């Protein structure tokens, strides 16, 4: 019954979304307040209906209603409650439900928060949101119905892939979708602006917080996925340039560019058509990711059961959404008036530099991801494009980018003084070189490490440079402390956010460079009582025993770490054998320290009475995760800037 109610709500939502789209766009065209009001009402109704449908599906999972195909294939009665719930979006149909629900919630948020938006702009935004929701709802109802019943319900379900039964992965998809869908708001604003033929600072002030929020979610979502891969897969890596990872990374790159170009629109009324294009591309890349993952066009280690029929439907959606909006762009964008002027060396110039590099990076990732498809479609057979390609393309692009990130924020608007800024950064340069030198000496001073040392210097340059910029703003070393602290408090949150986020990027670089350069790996057979040297520790396999779990059996190894004969750490990784579906997983045991992670894995018993064990010393990896968190924190701080607060009349204050 509950499931039927959900199904009904979903079907009703389809019509409501259609009404929302048509009424919003038509009402705005006519300038009819009543029609526009009806579109707003539809937006709220859509949210309620999709929430109802998602709730009923979740309910079916919670009570393990195996008469639903979706529940029977993806859940199991013995699964812990958290994973019963996360199982809702751990599959194709359910994840689309979550997606469309978030879309409707965001749409309703525009309805409810956008009181001082110009009514016609608001109606158009809501209308576009309605049309996007319509296409997703049609996709769900016609090809991927989660409420399909089974004639003969099985006694128990198939279970969820145990690799996915993990807190990191339980929350990874929702954050990703919050990110993707958040970008749909920027997209809708872009379409509305194209229809009206008007982009101004007020428009950018509306788009920025939504973009920022989407960016924060997406950053967190990608970070969670990466973190999960790191501790769950048990081979010490955290990024594989897999097509599915790329599918989330491309919107991130484009979204990061959008975030920066929207600043130029807001402050200087320039880069307008470019920003509109980025808004369209960012959301289109999110949809493209969906297409790639769910159509089976590109092979990947991740997979939703793919289906060409669904692929065709998503392709049609992609054509309508991306193709239609790019067409609209081609027609309307040329009439957008160019705005404020600026020189290449200026704050705007720096932001534009960021944009060009981010776009080049996104284009390169897209090229690498799709290239096997291109060659195959042209009859050229199969080629593989793997991590070595992406690394060799991506790193050279990021070097000028990072170098410029410390300089850009210090340039003045319109026309900056590059030499002056570089002179002001002389202490930062010196500090980064000293830092890099210290790292080099402390890691043994090998010539082969010099590239990595360069990376460390770059990270330090960005980190110190970001802090220096903030210090200069506050006249930290020039004015008396009382004055400086007063100035520090007056610095707008958006500027704090930038500093924090950029510093986060620096931490991420330290993590990437450190872990890829100085990682230590030991793979061996170990008997009970044997010891292996890992970096500065003697690791002894103290004992190993069987441990029962709720829906698995585990082999647990207990490792004792000691330094100079003194025990300082115990780690107990597990090798789990899940019962339903029968699948082994590794549960790593990791201890993070300031300089890196001790990472242990135990595998099956080896012939001859020992166990296969793996130890890693993962240097600087905690900095990577911290850096991602710091980046999102920066985004959040910026989001709380009063100029970004949705619904608050904009202040006159300038940074």
């Amino acid at each position, binding site marked *: 019954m509950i499931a039927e109610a959900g199904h009904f709500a979903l079907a009703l939502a389809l019509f409501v979304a259609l009404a929302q789209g048509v009424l919003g766009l038509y009402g705005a065209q006519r300038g009819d307040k009543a029609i526009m009001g009806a579109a707003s009402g539809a937006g709220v109704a859509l949210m309620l209906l999709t929430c109802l449908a998602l709730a009923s599906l979740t309910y079916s999972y919670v009570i393990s209603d195996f008469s639903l195909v979706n529940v029977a294939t993806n859940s199991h009665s013995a699964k812990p409650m958290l994973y019963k719930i996360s199982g809702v979006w751990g599959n194709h149909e359910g994840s689309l439900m979550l997606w469309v629900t978030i879309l409707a919630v965001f749409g309703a948020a525009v309805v409810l928060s956008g009181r001082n938006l110009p009514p016609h702009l608001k109606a158009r935004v809501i209308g576009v949101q309605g049309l996007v929701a319509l296409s997703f709802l049609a996709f769900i109802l016609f090809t991927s119905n989660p409420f399909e019943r089974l004639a003969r319900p099985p006694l128990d379900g198939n279970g969820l892939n145990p690799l996915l039964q993990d807190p990191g992965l339980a929350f990874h998809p929702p954050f990703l979708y919050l990110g993707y869908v958040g970008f749909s708001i920027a997209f809708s604003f872009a379409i509305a602006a194209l229809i009206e033929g008007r982009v101004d600072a007020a428009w950018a002030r509306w788009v920025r917080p939504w973009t920022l929020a989407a960016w924060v979610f997406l950053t967190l979502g990608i970070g969670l996925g990466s973190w999960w891969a790191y501790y769950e897969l048990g081979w010490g890596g955290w990024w594989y340039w897999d097509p599915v990872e790329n599918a989330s990374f491309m919107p991130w790159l484009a979204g990061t560019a959008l975030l920066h170009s929207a600043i130029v629109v807001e402050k200087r009324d320039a880069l307008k058509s470019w920003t509109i*294009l980025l808004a*369209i591309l960012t959301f289109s890349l999110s949809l493209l990711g969906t297409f790639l993952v769910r*159509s089976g066009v590109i092979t990947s280690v991740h997979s939703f059961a793919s289906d060409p029929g669904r692929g065709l439907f998503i392709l049609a959606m992609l054509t309508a959404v991306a*193709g239609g909006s790019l067409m609209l762009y*081609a027609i309307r964008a*040329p009439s957008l008036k160019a705005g404020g002027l600026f020189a290449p060396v200026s704050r705007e110039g720096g932001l534009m530099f960021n944009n060009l590099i981010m776009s080049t990076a996104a284009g390169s990732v897209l090229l690498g991801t799709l290239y096997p*498809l291109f060659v195959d479609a042209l009859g050229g057979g199969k080629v593989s494009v793997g991590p070595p390609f992406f690394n060799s393309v991506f790193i050279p692009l990021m070097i000028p980018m990072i170098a410029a990130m410390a300089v850009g924020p210090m340039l003045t608007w319109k026309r900056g003084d590059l030499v002056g800024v570089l002179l002001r950064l002389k202490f930062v340069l010196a500090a980064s070189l000293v830092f890099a030198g210290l790292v080099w000496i402390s890691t043994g001073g090998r010539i082969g490490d010099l590239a990595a040392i360069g990376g460390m210097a770059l990270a330090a340059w960005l980190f110190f440079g970001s802090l220096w910029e903030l210090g200069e703003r506050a006249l930290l070393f020039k004015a008396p402390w009382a004055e400086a602290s007063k100035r520090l408090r007056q610095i707008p949150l958006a500027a704090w956010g930038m500093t924090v986020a950029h510093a986060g990027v620096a931490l991420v670089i330290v993590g990437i460079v450190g872990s890829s350069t100085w990682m230590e790996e030991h793979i061996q057979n170990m008997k009970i009582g044997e010891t292996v040297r890992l970096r500065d520790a003697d690791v002894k396999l103290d004992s190993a025993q069987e441990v029962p779990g709720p829906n698995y059996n585990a082999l647990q190894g207990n490792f004792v770490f000691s330094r100079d004969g003194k025990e300082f750490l115990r780690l107990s990784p597990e090798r789990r054998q899940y019962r339903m579906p029968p699948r082994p997983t590794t549960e790593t045991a990791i201890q993070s320290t300031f300089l890196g992670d001790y990472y242990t894995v135990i595998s099956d018993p080896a012939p001859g009475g020992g166990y296969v064990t793996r130890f890693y010393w993962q240097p600087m990896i905690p900095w990577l995760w911290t850096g991602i968190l710091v980046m999102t924190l920066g985004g959040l701080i910026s989001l709380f800037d009063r100029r970004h607060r949705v619904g608050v009349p904009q202040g006159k204050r300038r940074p």
Partner: protein
Amino acid sequence: MKSRLAYLLPVLIFVGLLGFFFKGLFLDPKAIPSVLIDKPVPNIDLAALPGRGDTGLKSEHLKGQVSLVNIFGSWCVACVAEHPYLMKIKAEGSVPIMGIDWRDDPKAGMAWLQKHGDPYERVGADPAPGHASVDFGVTGAPESFVVDRDGRIRYKHVGIIDDRVWKQTLLPIIKELQK
């Protein structure tokens, strides 16, 4: 006018991509074409399965007649499904089938043949790491190769041979080569 064209560029690129995506829906990204087509069979010299009575499988056994080389293993679930059809091909006598018992204990392979029937003219044992099978570019079992009289590989089929595959694809190729 020139600048208006620049604004058209994104949508043009997108339309180009769409063409590829559409084509991609009907391609199988997992199908890997063999690079050995029209090349001589690799140089192999495989021991016989214990108690089968043949002398194993060597490259020269694949010359002088058109043959079908079939990769199987006692561990392979799909091979059980394919096996009855191989028995039928043998009964028809249209082409000799040569077996390669891949990544298998030769004894287990022999026992498996005794249980499910033996459609092969000759069988070579290729225990792990399966050098001969890797030389054939094998990615899984079952896989089958059509080899012509000169000992060249002419066609590779990945997966189970069933009635459709046999009648529509393999048999016509074999008939053509036997002319």
